[in-house]
């Protein structure tokens, strides 16, 4: 009981406090989710509590250092050996790649579209902390000072990992493609069939939704980013189709795919800056630079998904900006 100039102020009861804090939480959530009004507050709080994350990352670092110490010279020598043998192979491939790139640029010139420019990329270290249960996020030890931006693609040596979802001053958060709140526009590498890959919350599964039974998609198909929407550049591997279930009671196929990026290996990631011209080409004229794009029409006769479609050379239509 407080006494301030004759007024008696009682400490609020447990229930009152709970109701007040519930209202506060709800308004915070609304502000955060609907309008992103709390970016600055969150950035400040993140800096304030960063030490907790640093402490939580210590065990893995120490463990890694101990393993390095025990294996020491031998593993280093073996790794150097492996890298040395790998390098000529990669260089040889690169030679071919350069020739193909030149050829590609030439063909584009003939078509009158701007050429794909190599993207700028930066290696970033991951801070080894666990994410919230059922979310798939990682903390990157780079922030606005390094030029990161919201929605920036995060890739590794094998494929797309996710995108930057929160930019702090010194560290940022990236949401992986398996996060239940994430979706990425993809296309089947084999025939250009467009789809969306949704995260599921499981560590190694994305689901492809809204494809009808007549869609030409098979287990083992590689899905690459389609570049539609402008967030991700075109052509990075995303996932491999694992299983297709065709339930006649459902309107769409139930397709699960396994991400090709090593999502659970917490090492380094690549942050890429897609160049403007790439986005321009992909957003405006995707049909011209791809193989004949299969159009999905509801009037198509139903046929089993396994039968490969004959290649029909359709007049290339400009793709609508929306995702199928």
């Amino acid at each position, binding site marked *: 009981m407080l006494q301030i100039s004759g007024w008696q102020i009682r400490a609020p009861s447990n229930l009152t406090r709970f109701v007040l804090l519930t209202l*506060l939480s709800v308004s915070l959530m609304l502000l955060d989710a609907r309008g992103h009004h709390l970016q600055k507050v969150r950035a400040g709080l993140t800096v304030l*509590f960063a030490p907790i994350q640093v402490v939580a990352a210590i065990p893995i670092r120490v463990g890694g250092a101990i393993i390095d110490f025990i294996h020491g010279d031998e593993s280093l020598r073996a790794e150097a050996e492996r890298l040395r043998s790998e390098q000529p192979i990669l260089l040889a491939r690169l030679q071919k790649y350069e020739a193909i790139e030149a050829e590609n640029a030439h063909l584009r010139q003939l078509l009158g579209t701007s050429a794909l420019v190599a993207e700028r990329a930066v290696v970033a270290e991951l801070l080894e902390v*666990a994410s919230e249960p059922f979310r798939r996020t990682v903390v990157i030890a780079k922030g606005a000072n390094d030029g990161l931006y919201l929605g920036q693609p995060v890739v590794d040596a094998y494929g797309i990992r996710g995108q930057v979802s929160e930019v702090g001053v010194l560290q940022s958060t990236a949401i992986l493609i398996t996060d239940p709140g994430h979706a990425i526009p993809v296309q089947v590498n084999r025939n250009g069939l467009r789809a969306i890959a949704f995260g599921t919350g499981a560590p190694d599964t994305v689901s492809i939704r809204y494809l009808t039974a007549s869609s030409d998609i098979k287990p083992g198909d590689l899905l690459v980013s389609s570049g539609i929407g402008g967030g991700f550049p075109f052509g990075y591997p995303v996932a491999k189709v694992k299983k297709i279930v065709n339930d006649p009671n459902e309107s769409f196929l139930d397709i699960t795919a396994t991400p090709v990026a090593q999502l659970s290996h917490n090492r380094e990631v690549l942050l890429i800056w897609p160049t403007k011209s790439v986005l321009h080409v992909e957003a405006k004229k995707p049909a011209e630079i791809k193989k004949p794009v299969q159009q999905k029409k509801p009037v198509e006769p139903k046929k089993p998904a396994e039968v490969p479609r004959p290649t029909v050379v359709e007049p290339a239509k400009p793709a609508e900006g929306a995702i199928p």
Partner: protein
Amino acid sequence: MSLGHSARRRLIIAASFLVALVLSILPWPVWTEQFRPDWVALVLIYWCMALPARVGVGTAWSVGLILDVLYGSMLGENALAKSLIAFLTVRFHLQLRMFPRWQQAVVVLLLVAANNLLVLWIKNLAGQAPSTWSYLTPSIVSMLLWPWLFVILRDIRRHGNVS
């Protein structure tokens, strides 16, 4: 120790919550993640039961907000869930103290499950709900851990002379 009684109490309680927060984001192999107990909830339930006048809804809300910041979830999400736990625990702390240990553990299961379902419901509203059933495993693991954690925290409280 030259620390006053009240300062020492605050230090010990804050340190226990800090350890719980670190354990919540300590990296483990991915397949174990669905079995990660809700450390913050466990520590919170203990202190709300032992010292309901000192640790209550306000503490719970602040710790939950820190958890939101560390997890990168919506601000207020875990704060709301943790203050629900604190509210219920403080409301029933007299009954809880009388319960045998296993019965307390069952209540812990219910409290953590309520916490998880509330978070899941909020996530669903925000369109981020996971398509998996494993959101109830943390509450079971928390229940199994409760008897041991209770003994550890009780010893800390007695040695630290926290009241």
